[in-house]
């Protein structure tokens, strides 16, 4: 099913809550703004965030002759989405599965979804280096995968886990497109003083240390978290986040 997909990009991070899903949706939306056809596959089975972030909760996945039909964000069908969130009947119910069941689900997501002709498939992953990641990596062996975008926040606590993810990529032979530092600084709306809540520069120094390219840093901007399905580059074109997303996407396209 992935033969008709031109580029596959993984979004990874050893650490949770660093903004993988937010970065994935904004990368996808930025690519759509640039005229590409894009798909997002959410393989975070225990905590799927993509349906909420794109305001697609409550949509259903349909079965067609060719496979599962993903959920499209609008009539133009430029952005297709697949997530376990669409298969649950209640948004509050937990998916309490051990590895083998998760592995089977991820395999199905990779083999049974009919994406059609799309330019980019962005795969959003859960934190860690375990079942979901091993399965994705094993099943992508036969197809061309561009590589992984790694997301971190600047503080040492997060960088420490992300180093492990970089080792995972190196061990399993996944190319690293580059590293993004999210939540870099927060500009106080009252006094415009910029505070580095989660410290600063951790992403850049990790990129240097691990010898991977640094794609850029995204400041903390509460507005971005509230965009819910709208492209940052379109809604807040003047914001530093929009500029960063634009640059990162250009680097990804060039890659």
């Amino acid at each position, binding site marked *: 099913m992935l033969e008709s997909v031109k580029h596959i990009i993984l979004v990874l991070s050893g650490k*949770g*809550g660093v903004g993988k899903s937010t970065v994935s949706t904004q990368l996808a939306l930025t690519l759509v703004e640039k005229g590409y056809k894009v798909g997002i596959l959410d393989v975070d089975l225990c905590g799927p965030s993509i349906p909420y972030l794109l305001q697609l909760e409550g949509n259903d996945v349909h079965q067609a002759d060719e496979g599962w039909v993903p959920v499209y964000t609008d009539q133009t069908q430029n952005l297709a989405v697949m997530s376990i969130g669409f298969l649950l009947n209640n948004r509050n119910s937990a998916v309490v599965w051990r590895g083998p069941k998760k592995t089977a689900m991820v395999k199905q997501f990779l083999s049974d979804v009919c994406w059609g002709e799309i330019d980019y498939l962005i795969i959003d992953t859960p934190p860690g280096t375990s079942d979901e990641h091993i399965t994705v990596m094993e099943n992508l062996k036969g197809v061309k995968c561009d590589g992984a975008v790694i997301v971190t926040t600047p503080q040492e606590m997060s960088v420490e886990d992300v180093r492990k993810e970089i080792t995972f990529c190196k061990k399993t032979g996944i190319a690293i497109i580059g590293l993004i530092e999210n939540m870099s600084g927060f500009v106080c709306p009252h006094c415009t003083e910029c505070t580095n809540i989660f410290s600063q520069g951790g992403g850049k120094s990790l990129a240097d240390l691990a010898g991977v390219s640094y794609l850029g840093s995204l400041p903390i901007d509460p507005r971005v978290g509230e965009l819910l399905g709208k492209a940052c580059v379109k809604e807040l074109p003047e914001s530093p986040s929009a500029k960063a997303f634009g640059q990162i996407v250009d680097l990804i396209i060039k890659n």
Partner: protein
Amino acid sequence: MASEVARPENAPQHCPGTESEEAGKASACAGCPNQQICSTAPKGPDPGIALVKDRLEAVQYKILILSGKGGVGKSTVTGLLSRALAKSDSEKNVAVLDIDICGPSQPRVMGVVDEQVHQSGSGWSPVYVDDNLSVMSIGFLLGSPDDAIIWRGPKKNGMIKQFLSEVDWGKLDYLLIDTPPGTSDEHLSAVTYLSQANLTGAVIVTTPQEVALLDVRKEIDFCRKTKINILGVVENMSEFICPCCQKSSQIFKANTGGAEKMCQDLNVPFLGSLPLDPKVAKSCDNANDCFEEISDSPVLTALENIVKNLTAKCNEK
């Protein structure tokens, strides 16, 4: 719990249960795709459960720190709670067990990054941060900070069993168990092994925004499905106080009412909220004791309140 028969959801109608003596041999098993596995696998509950029970007999309160979402501060909150409990009474013994196998953070939070674990006749000796505060984490067993643990479920399960049954904690008042995000192998393993060990309950950590609450509601559902008593919810990073102008702003906006509203909706206790203080993050990064470094932080006053609520909840049980 042992008397309850573990029966898979999609099992045939008269399935005797996977742990039964009859598993794989009863007439209902004919044609079940799992028949062979059931008939050859060892029967009865995992012997590890009894080992864990014995090992944790001398621990008064066993508390899981959970959150469906990553990066909400489970490890930081665990670290703060353990230090606060240990400082409140030097006679009380507190320990932290980190079962986040793929991303262990406790060595850093507790400021014992380069320590090592030693083996003795009575088990693994944990690393002592203070006279009455000890830690165990897979982080102590790794050779380099770059080492990744690329394990599937069963291997993680084995590690957690060892952590729960082979660490020589001594006599403890509180054992806080820090978990990874999600509702999967690590959580199921911990719950299974602790099933006979009289688990006190779980503290759930969240941040105020809906993206986090969405996953945290799933964790509450997990607790209900696995019959874990919920001691309460802690909201972390609830507000940010600018160090320059002292004004508060919401970075992770509670667009659906935040944790307190969720607690009301789902009828679980709310323990309190912790503000976001960059100094706490920094002090964790530098592996320092934040109680000495940030004695004036609003986090500590808020924490005191949470500890009070938590100990009250523990005593209720």
